[in-house]
Structures are given as C-alpha cells and as structure tokens.
C-alpha cells in the first residue's frame, strides 16, 4: 500500500496509480465480515482499459477520460482547465458558489478536524490521497499561483505546485472520490467546505472541458432533457408502467389504486425519481395508496421531466441543473398546482426545494415540499388507520445526506417510525451526523469498469459497518430486518452492497422506503404489503 502520497505526486508524469489498496489496508468491519481474507478481491482494471483511459490515480476509474493523443492535446486540455479555474473565481461566471469557494480557499487553518469526519478517508485506512484536505490543498495552491498570480511569495506562503496534464487527469478522477456528503463541512470550525471544492472541480470539468461520467451526464441529465427521464422512459412508457403498477397494487392491497395524471389545479404535483417506477414499483404504489386514502387531491405530470424528479446537475454542472429545475417548475405551472411534492429521493429534494430557489423566480417559484413532511402530517393526523404490530420486525433508518444534513429534515421520518415500527432502532451516529450510504453524488449508478468494487469496499464501508452494528443482536436469518432508506440513490447502493456481501440470503437484511412501511401498517390493506422477497 502507498498510503503516504505527497501533494507533488499528483503531477508525477508516469502512468502508475498513486495508491493501491488491499483488503487488509481497509477499516476493519464487525462480524460477520470481520475477516479481510474472506472479503471479495477487487477486480483489477484490465490492461486494455489502462491503455485507453486515464487511470493514474488509484485502483479504479470513474470518469473514463480518454488519454490525449499528443503533447499538444495535453497542453490544450491544461489551458482549458486554467480558463475554467479562473471562471470559478469570477462573480459573473460563478455567482452561485463563489463566496463559499473563496472562503474555503482562503481560510483553511489545516487543523484536519474534517479528516476524521470523512467516511472515505477512514474506510480507506486513512489513505492520504482521500483525506478531504488533500484535494482542496491542490486546488488552493493552484488558486494562489494561477488565479491570484501570487508569484514566489505565494509559493513561499501557501506552497508551490506544478501544473501539468497528469495532475489535471488525476484531479478529474479525484473529484469523483468524494460523495459530496459534506460531513467535513459540518465539522469544520471555520466553515470550510471541502465537499464544495470537489463539486466545483466537477463543475469546471463538465462546463469547461465537457468531461463528466456518462451515467450522470449523457445518460442522465442529457437524456432526461431529451426524452423526459434519465431512465429513458418517455410519457407513453411511464404511463404504461404506472398503469401496470396500479394493477399490481390493487391486486396486492385489495384497494383500488388509480394514479391520476395531469389533473389541473391539483393540490399536489407529486414528482418521483423515475427510477422508483422501474426498480421499486411498491414505492410509487404506496404513495398512491397513502395520498388517496388521506383524501389529498394529487396528480402526476406527463410533461417532459415532469415525471422524473432527478436533477443530476446538482452533482456536477450548474447549467444542466438550472435547465432541469426549470422543467420541473414548468410542469407545475402548466397544471396550476398548489405545490410540488418530491418523492423519496434525497438529491431531488435538495435540488428543487433548496438550491433551485436561486433559479426559480416569478411564477416559476411554485411552493415545494418534501414528501417526508407531508407524510408526517398525514400519519400524525390520524387520517389513516395504522396497526404497528404489522411492522413488528427490526427497522433502522438511514439518513440521506441531502435530505437530512443538508436540508434539516430530521424528525418527521423518525416520528413516523416511532409510531408505526415497534422495533425501530437508530444507527450511531444518525440524524445530521449520519454517514453517507456510499452511493452519494451519483456513485450508486456509476458502474463503469471496477468502480462498484471501490464503492463497496471504500465509500460504502462506513455505512455497512453501521448497519451490521445496529442489527448485531439479530443477525439470525430467521429474523427479517429492514433498512429504511427514503432515497432512490441510497436504495440502489444498499441493494448492490447487500447483494455483494450476501447479507440478504445469509442474514435477512432487507431494505426499502418509508411509504412501504406506512402502507404495510395500514389496517385497510391486505396484510403483507412488504413481502420479504428480494427486489
């Protein structure tokens, strides 16, 4: 293992990765995964991949940047990088995040309080390369040298740095070794935000150099703006799928489920992450059952992007972000609904409820609310007849970073679970101090090459430890257990990680959303809505 990477290594001209991790280097896990020798081996990148793409950071490759064909091409890319770096610090080009970025550049005291807060740094066995300040320190030195033109004095005061293509290539990958969970920013005594630094780098690479992982750009926001959804579903397909879900849910619950489309003047326009419709149909089904039973006048929209709440631009590109946010607002405005309610998707909640507040003005500024608070109101009002004994199995709650730490929606989901789940137990730490699932900021859907190996072993490791600990007293497979994760991206990460470590088959650790637990407790619904099948 090469734990002691130096800052100057980023500019090393060779192709050798700066870091190689073995299972024994990683943070130990509790039983039953406490033997590193029994852990899965990482799939190495193939020589073909190493030859084609820039893979000189570590053992994996998230972005698949093709290797430049000439020195000239390398030079041009570095120039574009510098132009983009400049723009990050110009008000007209970066009005959204300029102030916190400058604060993060100029006020870090290098106390390293943030490092201990980072799940990736800890899980990697404290590898220097993944220390949250490592990436920021590179950017900080570039800032003083190339943006502030600090000359020799800056080099003396802030440390010198060599800029070349290998550094840029490694920085591209390194900007995708952070989940943007911003636990580090929360703990910083000065408010320095290393997560934002990673975000701003991604933005520079996308907006200035056209470089972004295909899963979130080409097949994500671009596809969404073209056909209506990142899943590729157009309006016809999504309606067909919802009709199928309605039928299934009617059969399963004994309650007639009929999802309303394009109802003008509805009180609530519900927008799901469209991935729910394809991968977790019980979730939109359960929403339909709850809203209808609560007597709410609600609708879905078949407008372009009006039925897919995702806004991947939040993770990597302000322009794509604004385009999608406007589409969402447009769908609501067209239907003249009273408000938009966002389904169980963390980043979509923060994107449209909070961040889009800087984009939506005038009549585009439709009121927006998280489904979590609406569900809280419904459950606490007593409008649904609920029988908690139907949920008498161990349940824990995962806090999606965007929804909880970054929006402050903390208590409503807990109050719901305390009311309907007799065996609800908290992971430690939780709430705003939670750990990311490991799939945050798009990692859960980025599956090129061996990137999933990295996210199971490194970025997801801390959450895996928490889940194993919270269920340590009931790992027996005769006891069904439920990780409640009200976020599509988090659910994707849990599904893949539970499957990778075979925790469903061996220990009956399952996962799902919040609405499924509510419907499972509804007295009017046939028992067994949660069917304990692997989905």
């Amino acid at each position, binding site marked *: 293992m090469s734990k002691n990477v130096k800052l100057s290594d980023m500019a090393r001209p060779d192709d050798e990765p700066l870091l190689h991790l073995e299972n024994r280097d990683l943070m130990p896990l509790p039983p039953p995964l406490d033997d590193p020798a029994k852990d899965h081996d990482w799939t190495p990148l193939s020589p*073909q*991949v190493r030859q*084609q793409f820039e893979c000189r950071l570590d053992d994996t490759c998230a972005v*698949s940047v093709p290797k430049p064909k000439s020195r000239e091409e390398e030079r041009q890319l570095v120039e574009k990088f510098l132009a983009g770096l400049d723009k990050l610090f110009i008000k007209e080009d970066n009005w959204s995040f300029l102030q916190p970025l400058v604060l993060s550049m100029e006020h870090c005291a290098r106390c390293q309080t943030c490092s201990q807060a980072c799940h990736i740094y800890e899980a990697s066995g404290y590898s220097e390369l993944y220390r949250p300040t490592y990436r920021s320190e590179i950017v900080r030195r570039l800032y003083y040298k190339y943006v502030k033109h600090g000359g020799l004095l800056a080099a003396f005061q802030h440390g010198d740095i060599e800029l070349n293509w290998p550094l840029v290539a490694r920085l591209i990958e390194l900007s995708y070794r952070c989940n943007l969970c911003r636990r580090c920013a929360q703990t910083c005594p000065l408010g320095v935000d290393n997560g934002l630094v990673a975000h701003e780098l991604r933005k520079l690479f996308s907006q200035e150099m056209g470089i972004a992982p*295909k*899963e979130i750009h080409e*097949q*994500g926001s671009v*596809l*969404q703006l073209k056909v209506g*959804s*990142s*899943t*590729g*579903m*157009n309006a*016809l*397909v999504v309606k*067909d*799928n919802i009709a*199928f879900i309605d039928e*299934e849910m009617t059969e399963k619950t004994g309650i007639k489920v009929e999802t309303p489309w394009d109802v003008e003047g509805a009180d609530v326009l519900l927008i799901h*992450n*469209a*991935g*729910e*419709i*394809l*991968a977790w*149909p019980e979730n939109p089904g359960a929403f339909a059952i709850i809203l209808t039973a609560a007597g709410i006048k609600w609708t879905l929209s078949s407008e372009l992007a009006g039925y*897919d709440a*995702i806004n991947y631009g939040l993770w990597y590109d302000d322009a794509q972000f604004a385009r999608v946010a406007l589409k969402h607002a447009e769908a609501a405005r067209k239907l003249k609904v009273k408000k938009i309610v966002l389904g169980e*998707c963390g980043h979509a909640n923060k994107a449209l409820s909070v961040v889009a507040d800087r984009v939506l003005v005038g009549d585009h500024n439709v009121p927006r609310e998280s489904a979590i608070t609406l569900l809280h109101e419904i459950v606490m009002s007593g409008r649904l007849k609920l029988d908690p004994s139907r949920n008498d199995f161990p349940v824990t709650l995962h806090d999606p970073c965007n929804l909880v730490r970054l929006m402050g929606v903390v208590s409503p989901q807990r109050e719901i679970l305390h009311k309907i789940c007799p065996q609800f137990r908290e992971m430690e730490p939780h709430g705003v101090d939670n750990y990311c699932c490991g799939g945050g900021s798009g990692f*859960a*859907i980025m*599956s*090129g*090459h061996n990137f999933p190996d990295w996210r199971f072993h490194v970025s997801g490791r801390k959450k895996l430890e928490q889940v194993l600990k919270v269920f340590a007293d009931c790992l027996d497979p005769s006891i069904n257990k439920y990780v409640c994760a009200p976020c*599509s*991206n988090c659910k*994707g990460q849990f599904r893949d990680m539970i499957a990778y470590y075979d925790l469903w088959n061996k220990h009956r650790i399952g996962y799902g959303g919040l609405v499924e637990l509510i419907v499972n407790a509804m007295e009017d619904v046939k028992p067994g809505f949660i069917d304990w*099948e*692997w*989905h």
Partner: protein
Amino acid sequence: MPIFEVNGRQYEVDEDGFLQDPSIWNEEVAKDFATTEGVTELTDKHWKVIHYLRNYYLQFGIAPMIRKLCKETGFKLNEIYELFPSGPAKGACKLAGLPKPTGCV
C-alpha cells in the same frame, strides 16, 4: 471503445461490456455474450427472457420494468438470477443486446 472478441468475432462494447450498437443483435450475439455472464448453455427458459426483453426494447426503446419481465415470462426474480447470474439488468439485458439501463434503477 473497448472491443470484445469471442469465437473469432469482434464486438464494440461500452465500459460495462454492453453491445455498443443494439441494432446489430441476433441470436448468435446472445450466444457470444453468454460466455461473459456465466451462462454455459442457452435453454428455452433463457430464450423466453431474451426474446421478451428484445421485443419490449424494439417497441419502447428501453428495458421493461423488472416486475413486468417477471410477470410476462412467469419467472420469479430469483429464477431469473439462476438463469442469468448477473441479474436481469446487467445479465439478461446484455445478452439481449439492450443498452445498459440508465437513471437511478
């Protein structure tokens, strides 16, 4: 683009090993890709899944809901995993020459 070579034939594939151009698919392609997905022999059950996926894709341009696949073919999800060890999305879709499913699925 990476090239996947098998039985003397070459296919352009993406980073996840999915066929780059879904329109060149035929049954031979399914047989060739089966070798990468731990499928040793393509039985009638495999073909039922592959043909359903293929037809749905030609009609709608994307992969069907997994639940729909199960209902229409009559296989439970775990049976699909028995047929295609990497699962319906990464395994069966690959053999049927569909692009990798996109979005948060």
